[in-house]
């Protein structure tokens, strides 16, 4: 395997347990499967593909790993129409033009040509920047499924060999392999070739215990009994057939709302007046009200 022979600094973690501990120090509560998968990705030197519904902390995971390992986070946000010039590198045309004009007419073609295709005129985009760094780096490729399929082909070279070929300069090898996290909402299937090169982690809605811990960590000053009830209600909402299921971020928002309103217990009226924080579709609110046995809500 070529990738295992790439220069790699000393491992960042000793055990999955240490991953969990270090992540919790930066306020990311990782379950054991998350910790183990992050540990394996780091040890095997493979990119980590994180899939799951919106708002379960996929992007947060990358940020937390960066914070826990004292690494810089470089982020490539994917969108429809993302191209090489935005993802890899681009030549700084205007600067090259200036250089040609400044050189005057006596400069030879060969010399000018060599001069304008140098590092000075290269605009490094996230992928190239992440590869060229000497310090620990976490490369986050966010919402990979939003990018066009052609971009996946581009990622293959970067992610399996950690190198980028620039025709005028040659091949740039990674000085130090970055920890790569790709996230996807699964709005479309990523290609098999890309998936094969990654470790896969599916993040789902958290267990009640973990969600309770998250809310307590994120919303200081909230009462424990209220959190218990809140988490219970959200877990129930997630079992309903809704258009948009509440995410962790929305649970936290709900907790903040209840705290701000000074609510001490989750009763019918408290839920009815604040349901809009977690359910953003009228039909979802009506359905939830019916299933939870609230008299009438949302109207």
């Amino acid at each position, binding site marked *: 395997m070529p990738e295992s022979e790439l220069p790699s600094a000393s491992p960042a973690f000793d055990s*999955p347990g240490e991953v969990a501990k270090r992540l919790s120090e930066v306020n990311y509560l990782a379950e054991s499967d998350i910790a183990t998968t992050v540990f394996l990705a780091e040890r095997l030197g493979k990119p980590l593909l994180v899939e799951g519904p919106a708002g379960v902390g996929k992007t947060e995971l990358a940020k937390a790993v960066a914070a826990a390992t004292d690494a810089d986070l470089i982020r490539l946000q994917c969108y429809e129409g993302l191209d090489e010039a935005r993802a890899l590198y681009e030549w700084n045309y205007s600067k090259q033009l200036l250089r040609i004009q400044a050189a005057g007419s006596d400069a030879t073609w060969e010399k000018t040509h060599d001069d304008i295709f140098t590092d000075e005129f290269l605009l490094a985009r996230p992928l190239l920047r992440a590869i060229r760094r000497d310090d620990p780096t976490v490369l986050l490729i966010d919402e990979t499924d939003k990018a066009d399929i052609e971009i996946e082909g581009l990622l293959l070279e970067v992610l399996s060999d950690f190198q980028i070929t620039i025709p005028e300069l040659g091949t740039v090898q990674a000085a130090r392999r970055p920890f790569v996290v790709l996230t996807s909402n699964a709005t479309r299937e990523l290609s098999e070739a890309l*998936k094969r090169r990654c470790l896969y982690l599916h993040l789902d809605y958290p267990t009640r215990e973990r969600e309770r811990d998250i809310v307590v960590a994120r919303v200081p000053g909230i009462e424990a009994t209220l959190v218990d009830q809140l988490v219970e209600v959200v877990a129930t909402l997630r079992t309903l057939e809704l258009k948009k299921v509440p995410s962790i971020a929305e649970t936290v928002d709900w907790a903040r709302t209840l705290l701000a309103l000074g609510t001490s217990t989750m009763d019918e009226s408290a839920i009815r007046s604040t349901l809009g924080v977690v359910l953003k579709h009228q039909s979802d609110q009506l359905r939830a009200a019916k299933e939870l046995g609230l008299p009438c809500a949302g109207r």
Partner: protein
Amino acid sequence: MPDADRTALLDHHIAFLDALREAGLPVSLAEGLDAARATTMVEPLDRESLRTAYAATVLKRQGHRPLFDELFDLWFPRAIGEGRGDERQRQEPRVEVTGGRAAPEDARAMRAELAELLFEGDDAGLRQLASEAVARFGEIGGGSAGNASGRGGAASAGTGGTRGKAAGASTGARSWSPNAALDALTPRTLLAGLLRSDAGRDEFAQSLARRAYRERIARFERVVNAEARRRIAEDRGADATAKSVVRPPLDQIDLIGASQAELAALRREIYPLARRLATKKSMKRKRGGAGVLDFRRTIRASLATGGVPVNTRHRPRRPHKPELVVLCDVSSSVASFARFGLLLVYALSEQFSAVRSFAFVDTVEEVTPHFTAADDVADAIYRMEQGLSMRLMGGGTNYGRVFTRFDEHYADAITPKTTLLVLGDARANYVDPAAATFAGLVRRAKHAYWLNPEPRGNWGSGDSAAPTYAEVVEMIECRSMAQLADFVRDLE
């Protein structure tokens, strides 16, 4: 580690990967190597770490997760034999135990314990209890009557004369049944007692508690099922068990034969699926070439090249949105299929310029108003079924009359822009299929498709008029969510 052990472990690893491949997971050679390396990096005796290591390296699609878990449990069982851990310490009973009058004597104590564990939501305890329950009550057939107690014991005591004969039979016929264990414990009847023990809280808290207990009971039943599979695998070898008990991934499940739980899981998948399909459709549209020349923007762009129109500009193509007419067979035999078809069509309704839907059994009725009234499709389907004047159950589908009546009453629904979609099994109950009338409908529509939930091999058997209709319309086999999704994606 001695070399022999290492080889055995490697063989086990390879056999597990083979089983995954056989079950339909695409595990490449490189992924297998990754898995092997990953397993050396985690604590080998920690089963969950091992599971995570395999999941991270060979599992690349969440839809395959249940399948993967089942196979993993078979190849790397939690325990061997009885699998008993330490005795739990007993506590004062706090939970009222209901039901189970018919339960055998020794099942009573276990039911009380089960009620306690369900009340607390103690997953580890439930798992252990499940394995005890299968060991004591789940054994069926076979001759090793030594530990046959409870239900098995009662049965053989009643037929004492045959018992000796049974014991003489080969022990190879022994098997484990999750249903026998669940029949002895009847966990569902505990619900009432659990709720009463929880009394004193307000109504809203009660309704939440009811859901939580139901979910825990369902979880216990799943664990018992898994435990029985594990015991079977122990007797027969994991390989043989995998072939007989593993269910296909969710999107491959036959819609007609799906269980309630599977149907519920599929319904939850509808909106994510609709979103994926909409994305694919819009991507396809963008890739389709440019539209007509935009004269003004071409001239404007030509100024940059000194008035020579080097690059032409085009108007974006207008998205083509078909008008859809859906004819749904809602008779009981294919109702679940029709429901999914309707769910998906309406979850995707913004992809169509108009949708009209008709339900039929022995006659046809328009049901569009139920769907346009509210945007919650699941509710709409329920209201539709309530609102239908014809009998849903028992009544045989009369395709001939349905098409004739449709032609008489709703002829205006089909225009040259319409895509006609029929969802049904084409079982005409030996009455005249009115193929000529149907052919007329198909001719008037722009496109027409018939989705048949029966396997292609059964078309034409018995009262099926599928071959007759297939002559006039493109009939497509559509048995699973995946096939349904593929069809909707390519629908123009």
